[in-house]
């Protein structure tokens, strides 16, 4: 990134995640935008460019042009505006877009927004829309795959190859709920046991209800600025973008090499590590894309936190909890904090930033920091898109 300007995260905001039938998409976005502006010490009119990640516009919520609708409601009209789509990684794609606008010198302040309203339609229809998010024509039209089913294909292959068990998958859910219970913005704040997971209803075998992230409404807002602007704003603890890596996978799952890892995650993380000039062992903590429990285990292996097939070992030993080798998803993850698809990527950056500042996170889930490096891994679809963002204080 030799020719690019340094970029800092200077303001973050996040709405309460959950079933938010009390607000429409604009009102929900406002809940994230306002605190992010206050955090940065900026007014809405100071934001020069906005990239909004959102997936269900016109499908599971009513507005087709959410960037303009939420932009108007939050006082951002006049800024450069766009909606960005990378399925469940749309928030990270929006962050990359906002980052690039500042890094390239096009502007000095930009906003990455993510929002999703997923609870305005019934569950089977939501399953339908999200199930179509692969290759509709070849893999949905005749076969009716759902999003849990796509990841279930990976779960069964991983279990067959490495001996991963349903109890192992359950451990991910138990961990996520444990930390979500300490996070006031999380959707699911109840503690659960392995037995609760194993006895929950089967959605797509071997995945059960508690293996799945909930359908969540939520919004998240991140403001980035150039080094000069961050200094001018007198930001106490700017958090710097150290590296972003990206990659993608085939639309048809049948075109994949194997089903025991996501190639897009491997490539995106390698590129992010290279850009940041670090190795996986230097990462203090991570936010990984655990839309389903199996996805967190795949992520450990794909991101190089352990060798292939050893993800469950990290989990069983508690190495991805506070006090372990690398704490993962200390906000409850997608699994329990919730997964408002377009907002998730920005919400990961929100959590990384607050953890790196060591000031805002609820104390009992603050990660210990050695290198002051955090990583966000955001997957779109079933490894269809992947963005890995590394932040450093």
């Amino acid at each position: 990134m030799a020719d690019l300007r340094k970029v800092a995260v200077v303001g973050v905001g996040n709405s309460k995640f959950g079933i938010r039938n009390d607000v429409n998409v604009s009102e929900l976005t406002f809940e994230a935008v306002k605190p992010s502006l206050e955090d940065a010490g900026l007014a809405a009119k100071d934001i020069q460019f906005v990239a909004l990640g959102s997936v269900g516009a016109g499908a599971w919520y009513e507005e087709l042009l959410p960037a303009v609708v939420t932009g108007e409601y939050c006082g951002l009209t006049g800024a450069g505006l766009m909606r960005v789509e990378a399925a469940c990684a749309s928030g990270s794609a929006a962050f990359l877009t906002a980052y690039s606008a500042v890094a390239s010198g096009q502007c000095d302040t930009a906003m990455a927004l993510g929002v999703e309203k997923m609870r305005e339609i019934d569950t089977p229809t939501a399953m339908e829309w999200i199930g179509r998010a692969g290759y509709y024509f070849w893999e949905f039209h005749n076969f009716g795959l759902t999003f849990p089913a796509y990841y279930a294909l990976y779960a069964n292959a991983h279990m067959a190859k490495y001996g991963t068990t349903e109890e192992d998958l359950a451990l991910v859910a138990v961990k996520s709920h444990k930390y979500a219970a300490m996070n006031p913005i999380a959707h699911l704040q109840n503690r659960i046991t392995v037995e609760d997971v194993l006895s929950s209803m089967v959605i797509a075998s071997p995945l059960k209800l508690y293996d799945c992230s909930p359908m969540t409404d939520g919004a998240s807002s991140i403001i980035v600025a150039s080094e000069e602007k961050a200094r001018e704003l007198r930001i106490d603890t700017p958090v710097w973008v150290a590296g972003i890596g990206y990659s993608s996978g085939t639309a048809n799952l049948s075109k994949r090499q194997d089903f025991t890892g996501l190639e897009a995650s491997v490539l995106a993380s390698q590129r992010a590590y290279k850009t940041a000039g670090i190795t996986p062992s230097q990462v203090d903590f991570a936010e990984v894309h655990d839309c389903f429990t199996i996805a967190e285990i795949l992520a450990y292996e794909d991101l190089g936190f352990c060798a292939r097939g050893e993800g469950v070992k990290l989990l069983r030993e508690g190495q991805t909890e506070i006090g372990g080798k690398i704490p993962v998803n200390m906000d409850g993850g997608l699994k329990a904090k919730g997964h408002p698809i377009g907002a998730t990527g920005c919400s990961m950056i929100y959590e990384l930033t607050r953890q790196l500042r060591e000031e805002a996170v609820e104390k009992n889930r603050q990660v210990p920091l050695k290198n002051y490096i955090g990583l966000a891994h955001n997957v779109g679809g079933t490894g269809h898109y992947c963005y890995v963002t590394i932040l450093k204080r």
Partner: protein
Amino acid sequence: MPVIKSKPITIVEEIPISKTLKFWEGLKEGKVYGTKCCKCGKLYFPPSADCPDCLCSEMQWVELGDEAEIETFTHVVVRPTSFCQYKPYTVAIGRLKEGVKVLAWLTGFKLSEVEVGMKAKLVAKTTPDGNPTYEFTRP
């Protein structure tokens, strides 16, 4: 919570199949076709009218064999709206002898019998409502 319901609409897209017509007609004759690039020789399933590898648009139709090895599977219990009329179904990805993989329903087995690595047979079929499709079944 108080709400206002949006105006309902029904959306049906008409998806062109001119370039893959032989595939859909082949299914009705009990055959499963892939395509092979005349320039680089790469075989495709699902069939493709253009070669993503060398960007050549000269492709030939190749009938695929029926022997498959199951690489992974799942039993879909909670179904999407447009599949709610079906009983829960099993979906599998199988690798054919030719090397390409196919994603399709797996029928004719008890769920407890299904495992990664087992053999299955790929067959073309027409659904009761007249739609051509293909599935894995007992060899």
